[in-house]
């Protein structure tokens, strides 16, 4: 194959030259070229090596269906493997490399694999390396070697340096494709006053009109295209999006589209995203995605120089490139004639047109005669010859079902048309099963029960003018469906060739052993398909999995139907009964970055900060993630590490006083005449009897009797409650309360409002807590008698109103002070001014955890959606005088089993040992399997001077009193003997609370 740039013609800008590199060599092309057209123009024949046999591969098509010219584009962090050279827009400085070859695509040592190809048929790897006696271990060993020798390009392992974004859009009509049908449909819809989006995967609008020579009415296809495109671009109701692929159609008229924003730019403006994901909600969708030409499975039909006929035509007419010097066109339908005519007109010698049929369509036949191209009827391609590229083609005469090999024709380009397959993918995404049409030898889009209309070649309409009518009809149908006035649609019927296609799927000649490829990308041959059928893989879906037919980047766009036809023949049933595999999104590959959009790195999820965030950071807090929240973890002094800092902080709380930000607690206002009754139903303990000005600890269950959350409820007034939840469950609890009030108990007059963001809260804990409050809180009598444990009072701090409750998570004398969020910093500063001089500390999440574990308070680690009240030792809280959610099912016999895992405390037998959360608790005589329980929370206890933990263990304390268990940690490789103790390590009587 020896392509060259024609002297004239094409939609390229010959006044400008751009340079690019392929496999380290420098080449030149023009704006308007694709990488494939520029490589062809430069005479580059071998672009890559095949997947399994390392056969040389060149450009086979001119579009997204490419299965041969797969290259790696870019370098370093921007290296993209398996890119179809036919769909890469050329730009100055583009660097591309051939794939899967060493040392180069022109001379590849791996090609030796091809010599042994008869020993690696379909399923070879599975049969050889898996199966009885070999086991998965052996497979995993071999797989590494197999993956190295068979494969495609390698992706970059560096972080993606580009940005991506998501955009949302609404329109009346979305048109996928901008060929004759798409342009006309868009115009019809716009003329009816509708808002239209036209998405075109190519960088130029026009589809096949970019190279079509068949006139549209009185106009040349080029003029017609320009007029339509201009009209659309003038309309303020139409958005035209080139370089944008509709990759999937989803429920509710939603389309997913990928826009390639900067891939074609040599020096993109740095603020532009590389790709943009469009999520479009369209009231009506018109699928005008065209059709893809099929190849024919003849010997060595994968050699560089064998190309789809329409692709050769498009290189000549759109890119001004001759794909070869001497061509043979092989066809089984009328479309090959136009290819032969256009190639000859462009200046390429056409040695012959082979038509598998016995007759020619009249008009084109006369034209060929005038040009002087010999037509050979009943003739098919048998075998291409030439090591690196086609040098000649052997043809065969067809008599009945038999083919007899005949003479050789010298040529370097074989332009093949095995018929056309409508692009039914998008319709299939909506659950419409393609239907095989025998007369067109094509799968047609099936009926669709949604506002999705297929037009043009995608509906099996072959003539350009019919495609225009079909597009107009689709636009009118959409307009009428949306209540606009539009003419009665006139639908052209599918087809349009003057002579029927006589499909040639495969050409087999006795004694001719050259491989006949169905799916060149995966090196699947016709022999592989027959083998798969003989071995029992009789359905299209099984065939795909066994042979890999139709997988990878091109998803079988060129080869699938041939494969199905050969399977159908082998099985002795019609193609219609064999069916196709299911087409799923995406139509063409979508970069993962596009799907992630801006949602990566720090924007992977929202960040929530408390009103005192800045204040903590100014005081040196090290922050940590707590769900979406950023919370102070610890406040290191003089180079302290975490372990030193939190121990100091916790010790200071128990010895003096500490301040901790508790703003992240979920806070819900529960208000209304029935608020008390509502809370009685939601919590296991009662609240309607709680006096105003008092708070109570509460636990709520799920319907199934499992603990959902815990927190405190403050009664501010008869009808006004303030509920706190754990930080982690704030959203869940709010949604749950809303659900109950709206779906289950609509008669309750209660309103719930999320007020988490409205209140800033600080815990003041430690024996000196009262002194600190006394210095800054106004209007509250803090004496024990006036403000007892679990009381709630309103006052003022730092000039703002505040709400104070005497609650304790640490087990010390403690208060929670809440102020409106805007006053959070001022409150903090005021409290700190009072606390710092008396040796107070700021304490973070780690010290908070240490203090609560010392007290045996449960938290998220223990409330893990598997534990019941009794498991946690909280059974006594449950009221027996009122019904509440979960009360009936918490009494299930299964939950009363004596071997239920229950909350206990653990301490290492050797007090010097460290404990790890997540360790498995086992009986010492059987350290194996799932053990008897697990360690949920651990900390070094500053009070006790050694490690302690909370755990859940079968039978609880009763079963394990005075026994030793082993905390086995196979992951971190340490086993620690532990004593099982009551889960209260510090002040078990709770006397400090009342200090």
């Amino acid at each position, binding site marked *: 194959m020896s392509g060259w740039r024609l002297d004239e013609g094409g939609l390229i800008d010959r006044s400008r030259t751009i340079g690019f590199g392929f496999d380290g060599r420098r080449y030149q092309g023009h704006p308007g070229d694709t990488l494939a057209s520029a490589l062809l123009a430069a005479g580059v024949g071998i672009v890559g090596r095949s997947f399994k046999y390392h056969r040389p591969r060149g450009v086979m098509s001119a579009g997204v269906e490419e299965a041969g010219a797969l290259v790696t584009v870019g370098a370093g962090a921007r290296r993209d493997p398996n890119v179809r050279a036919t769909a890469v827009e050329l730009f100055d400085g583009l660097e591309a490399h051939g794939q899967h070859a060493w040392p180069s695509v022109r001379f590849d040592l791996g090609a030796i694999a091809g010599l042994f190809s008869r020993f690696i048929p379909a399923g070879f790897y599975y049969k050889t390396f898996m199966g009885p006696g070999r086991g998965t271990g052996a497979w995993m060993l071999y797989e590494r070697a197999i993956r190295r020798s068979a494969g495609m390009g390698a992706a970059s392992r560096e972080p993606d340096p580009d940005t991506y974004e998501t955009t949302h859009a609404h329109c009346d009509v979305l048109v996928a494709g901008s060929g004759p049908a798409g342009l006309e449909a868009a115009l019809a819809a716009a003329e009816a006053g509708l808002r239209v989006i036209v998405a075109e995967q190519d960088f130029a609008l026009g589809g096949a009109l970019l190279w079509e020579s068949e006139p549209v009415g009185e106009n040349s296809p080029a003029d017609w295209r320009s007029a339509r495109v201009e009209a659309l671009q003038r309309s303020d109701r139409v958005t035209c999006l080139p370089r944008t692929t509709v990759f999937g159609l*989803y*429920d*509710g*008229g*939603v389309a997913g589209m990928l826009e390639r924003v900067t891939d074609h730019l040599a020096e993109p403006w740095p603020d532009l995203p590389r790709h943009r994901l469009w*999520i479009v*909600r369209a009231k009506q969708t018109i699928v005008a995605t065209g059709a893809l030409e099929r190849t024919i499975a003849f010997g060595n039909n994968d050699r560089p120089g064998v190309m789809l006929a329409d692709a050769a035509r498009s290189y000549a007419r759109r890119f001004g490139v001759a794909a070869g010097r001497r061509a043979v066109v092989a066809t089984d339908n009328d479309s090959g004639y136009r290819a032969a005519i256009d190639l000859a007109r462009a200046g390429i010698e056409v040695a012959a047109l082979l038509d598998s049929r016995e007759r020619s369509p009249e008009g084109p036949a006369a034209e060929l005669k005038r040009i002087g191209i010999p037509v050979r009827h009943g003739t098919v391609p048998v075998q291409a010859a030439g090591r690196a590229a086609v040098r000649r083609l052997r043809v065969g005469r067809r008599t009945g079902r038999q083919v007899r090999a005949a003479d050789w024709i010298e040529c370097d380009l074989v332009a093949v048309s095995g018929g056309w397959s409508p692009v039914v993918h998008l319709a299939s995404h909506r*659950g419409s099963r393609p239907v095989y049409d025998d007369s067109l030898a094509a799968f047609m889009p099936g009926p669709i*029960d949604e506002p999705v209309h297929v037009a043009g070649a995608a509906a099996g309409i072959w003539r350009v003018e019919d495609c225009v009518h079909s597009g107009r009809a689709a636009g009118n149908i959409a307009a009428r469906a949306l209540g606009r006035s539009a003419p009665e649609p006139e639908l052209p019927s599918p087809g349009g060739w003057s002579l029927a296609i006589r499909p040639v799927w495969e050409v087999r000649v006795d004694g001719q052993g050259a491989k006949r490829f169905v799916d060149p990308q995966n090196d699947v041959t016709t022999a592989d398909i027959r083998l798969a059928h003989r071995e029992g893989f009789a359905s299209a879906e099984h065939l795909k999995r066994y042979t890999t037919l139709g997988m990878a980047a091109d998803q079988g766009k060129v080869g699938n139907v041939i494969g199905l036809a050969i399977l159908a023949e082998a099985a002795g049933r019609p193609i219609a009964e064999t069916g196709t595999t299911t087409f799923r999104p995406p139509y063409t590959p979508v970069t993962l970055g596009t799907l992630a959009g801006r949602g990566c790195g720090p924007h992977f999820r929202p960040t929530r900060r408390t009103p005192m965030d800045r204040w903590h950071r100014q005081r040196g807090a090290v922050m940590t993630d707590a769900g979406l929240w950023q919370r102070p973890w610890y406040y290191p002094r003089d180079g302290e590490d975490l372990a030193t800092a939190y121990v100091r902080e916790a010790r200071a709380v128990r010895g003096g006083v500490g301040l901790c930000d508790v703003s992240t607690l979920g806070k819900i206002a529960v208000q209304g005449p029935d608020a008390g009754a509502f809370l009685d*139903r939601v919590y296991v303990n009662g609240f309607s009897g709680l006096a105003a000005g008092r708070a109570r600890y509460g636990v709520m269950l799920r*319907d*199934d009797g499992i603990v959902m959350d815990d927190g405190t409820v403050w009664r501010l007034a008869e009808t006004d409650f303030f509920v706190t939840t754990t930080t982690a469950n704030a959203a869940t609890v709010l*949604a749950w309360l*809303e*659900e109950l*009030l*709206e*779906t*289950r*108990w*609509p008669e309750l007059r209660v309103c719930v409002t999320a007020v988490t963001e409205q209140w800033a809260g600080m815990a003041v804990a430690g024996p000196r807590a009262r002194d600190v409050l006394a210095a800054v809180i106004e209007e509250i009598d803090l004496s024990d008698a006036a403000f007892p444990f679990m009381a709630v009072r309103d006052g003022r701090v730092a000039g703002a109103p505040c709400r104070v409750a005497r609650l304790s998570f640490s087990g010390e004398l403690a208060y929670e002070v809440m102020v409106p969020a805007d006053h959070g910093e001022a409150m903090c500063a005021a409290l700190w001014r009072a606390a710092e001089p008396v040796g107070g500390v700021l304490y973070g999440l780690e010290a908070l955890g240490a203090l609560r574990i010392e007290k045996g308070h449960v938290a998220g680690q223990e409330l893990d959606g598997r534990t019941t009240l009794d498991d946690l030792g909280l059974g006594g809280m449950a009221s027996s005088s009122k*019904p*509440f*959610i979960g009360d*009936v*099912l918490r*009494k*299930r016999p299964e939950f009363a089993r004596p071997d239920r895992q229950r909350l206990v405390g653990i301490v290492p037998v050797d007090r010097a040992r460290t404990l790890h959360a997540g360790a498995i608790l086992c009986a010492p005589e059987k350290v194996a399997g799932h053990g008897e329980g697990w360690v949920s929370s651990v900390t070094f206890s500053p009070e006790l001077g050694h490690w302690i933990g909370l755990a859940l263990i079968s039978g609880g304390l009763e079963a394990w009193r005075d026994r030793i268990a082993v905390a086995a940690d196979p992951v971190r490789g340490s086993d620690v003997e532990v004593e099982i103790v009551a889960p209260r390590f510090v002040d078990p009587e709770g006397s400090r609370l009342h200090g």
Partner: protein
Amino acid sequence: MLRIPCPFCGERDHAEFSYGGDATVAWPAVGETDPRTWYEAVFLRDNPRGPHREYWHHVHGCRMWLVVERDTLTHEIAGARPAHPDLAALLREKAAT
């Protein structure tokens, strides 16, 4: 993407909602003491093929709980109403006048 016609906000992407389970379940009164009744309400679900009623919570919108009629086979959504019966009745009255 499903498009759910929220009676308060209009038609919105399902990404704004969270699924809230089967809306055909008859929940026992909170005072019901029969474990069997609770067991059936909590654990037993039909898996209908075709039209179905389910709860959706417009959690990133108006935060209302809705009853959505969805065809489990085609994903077609026939309609949505407030889960709260008084609100649903109010909207019906308004629509009638």
